[in-house]
């Protein structure tokens, strides 16, 4: 175990962790965040996604030792129910969820991609989401929500 410093949603935390611990457990267990979730533990579904230095990463396969000092953003870091971020608002307005478990990965993956590629085409956005799973298949609404946000970003 060693002292690991993580900067999460703008706040600094020093945690006593085995450096090989995947970031997901630091976020969901040590910090008690609800956004990042264990879906597969294999980096295959996206439920654990966090944005690290502007890029969406699979926190379930990212050792904490590799993200020390970097800017880590989780779904809670974007906005709140009272003041949701534009992309969160788009999902709320489109009612783009059923169970909602995958929303973390869907929203953060789309946001990280669109922030870097504000002029992305519909098919490029689709490609960016090709590794994210929603098993309720709320795809129609999710894509509408993402398009709505994409239009805001492109403005």
């Amino acid at each position: 175990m060693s002292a690991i410093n993580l900067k999460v949603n703008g706040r600094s935390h020093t945690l006593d962790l085995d450096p090989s611990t995947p970031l997901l457990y630091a976020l969901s267990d040590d910090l008690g965040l609800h956004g990042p979730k264990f879906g597969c533990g294999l980096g295959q579904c996206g439920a654990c996604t966090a944005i690290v230095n502007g890029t969406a990463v699979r926190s379930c396969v990212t050792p904490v030792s590799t993200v020390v000092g970097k800017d880590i953003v989780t779904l809670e870091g974007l906005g709140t129910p009272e003041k949701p971020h534009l992309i969160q608002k788009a999902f709320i307005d489109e009612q783009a969820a059923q169970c909602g478990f995958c929303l973390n990965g869907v929203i953060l993956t789309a946001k990280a991609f669109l922030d870097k590629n504000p002029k992305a085409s519909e098919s490029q956005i689709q490609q960016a989401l090709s590794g994210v799973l929603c098993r309720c298949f709320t795809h129609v609404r999710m894509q509408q929500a993402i398009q709505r946000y994409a239009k805001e970003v492109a403005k």
Partner: protein
Amino acid sequence: MTPAARAELNRRNFLKGAGALIVGFRMLGGDAARAQFGQAPLPGAPPMDQVDSWIAIAADGSITAFSGKEELGQGISTAQQQLVAEELSVPFERVKLIYCDTALTPDQAYTSGSQSHPANFNHGNLAQAGATAREALFKMASQQLNVPVERLSAANGVISVKGDASKKVTYGQLVGGKKLNVALDKNAKRKPASEWTVLGKPIGRPDMAAMATGQFEYVHNVRLPGMLHGRVVRPPAVGATLMSVDENSVKDMPGVVKVVTRKNFVGVVAEKPWQAMQAAEKLKVSWTAGSGLPKQVGFHESLRKQPSRDVKLVDSKDTEQTLATAATVLKSTYYHPYQMHGSVGSSCAVADVQGEKATIYSPTQGVWYQKTTGAMILGLKPEKVHVIFRRGAGCYGLNGADTVTYDAAILSQAVGKPVRVQLSRKDEMAWENYGNAWTIDEHAGLDAKGNIIAWEHEAWTPGLGNRPGPETPGNVVTGMLIGYQPQAFRPGAAQEPKTYNNNSNGVPSYVAGHVGDKSEGTGTVKSEKVLVHNLVSPFWTGPLRSPARLQNTFAHESFMDELAARVKADPVEYRLRHLHDERVIGVLNAAAKAAKWEARPSPKAGNPKSGVVTGRGVACVAYEGDNGYTGIVVEVEVNQDTGKVAVKRMWVGIDAGPISNPDGLRNQAEGGALQGMSRALGEEVTWDDQKVTSVDWRSYHSLPLGFEVPKIECVLVNRPDEEATGAGETSITVMAAAIGNAIFDATGVRLRQIPLTPERVKEALQGEII
């Protein structure tokens, strides 16, 4: 029989004695399971015939409703909140809904089988409690204001005198936190749909903002003081049993608290989740070899030779003779694979077992059955076990929710502290209760005009285990590992049907469904026979969204298309020709109209034999015979060089009776259609000679978010004067057939085995028999 009446019949049959009903159980899945397990409340549950069990009015006028039907992501909590707000004439936000907590809510058995809408929105339970409470409040107001009930009206939680709004009294003043002490009144008048201002409106889900901002508490987020983390170690092969566990192999690992073994159950408890995961990996466990699995190639045909328990749904006793006189006879066999629920988050539960008492947070669909079976496995009295539902990832039926709840309970009892367990992806996928595999023969005769005159359906389906019900924890893997048996399998010949029951959709929509002296089917064909052989499965099985109905409908609706094509009839017209049920006809016409369906036979004329071609397909169903209706038209593109099928557009007609929330209904119809598409195109459980091999998202093929989503147009058919029916399992039921029919339309090649993978499509196009 109406959905609500059937629910009542099931309940009464249960009260008469469950024994007889077990007969049809394995085949019928959800609904017979309800009959077997009953809607008779378990001891200790709030009485279902008392309004106070359902509704409480606080002194400030806020209303708390209690329901036994839970939110799984399907939107039913929003609709229930709308229902109570409507019946009591208060704003939506004034109602708080509490569901599925064994210390608080009525026992409504499982939240499953598309039963929440019919159970709580018709003439009993939550809807009738709301109507009764409203009438009771009016009576109280009438006395207090000294004005007859007829002269009163209610709005915003205030009852006032019509024409003199100064004379008024609030609900809070009338009840003020006290009990109403009123029995549910069957004659209390529900508000007619024409007067609805809250119910029937597209109100957004109150949980949406919390979900989208990472604030929502799933069962995965439950944290109790002093809570530890558990991980289970499942056998490496089906049928393998435990030989030894070397506890020393992990004793020096940081955070490890205890290695727990109980018969064939092995688990590890540690302080942190990552420690528990590492310890479970490292723990040296010796197992016997597995019992061996049948070969997957040829599995479907091998089912015909297994000992079976047979169930007959209809038999006019003349199909053989009618088929002998037919001008044309067709016979086809359809195969459907085992498929999994594959929840996006692996299942999780938190248990706190302290001495004789247990508190359990579970994503189970049946908290009351977790209470009794949880008590069994822990050796506690049921009244000492408190089960509280917390939402997991979407379950679509019996995923790992029940088994992981047992895991958490066993580990917590072993360490005397709260323990949270989340399954690994592999443990979830290798041991869940899959949707059953099916082999289905369809056999029909046509007269000289091309009309169907006889239809036989014979199916083989293997099962093992099921929902645990009140006393069968061995129906899921953890129960079996600690020594409980799954429900018994008894081979036996079919008995003659005594009542018509098509809740498995074994009976095609196009036959008369004649049993006794009544024809209760939705179609016209009088010569009919449906026989189902229930077998033993090597894998665990259980209800997966539209169990049996989806597979039977794939066969029926594909075969109907084959018949239409044989006589060069338009597939919609040919269906209509053999239907008399207005609601099936209604959704079929709604979808066809929206799609601007052009009447012509399939296959489409003039498509080339290579490259990309397009086609359209149709299918429809009366879900469970009468519990929700869908007609669908799909348009596909088939790449004949690669075998890849892309669904480009869909038109869904859906009828669930009076629409409680149009946006919620649309969300279910869209999601169901796309999930059905994923199941039709890619999903299949695979195995080798020892174990399941589809254990992650590389080996089990779900369509990801990035695929090209077809345009979907939903036509919501509102039936305000009919009973509320199920909705969430309708569109998924017709997808496989609609896609298969569209592939036929595009290419002239018929596919009869799901999933419709590119390899299979390509092989079929090349004329190989697969």
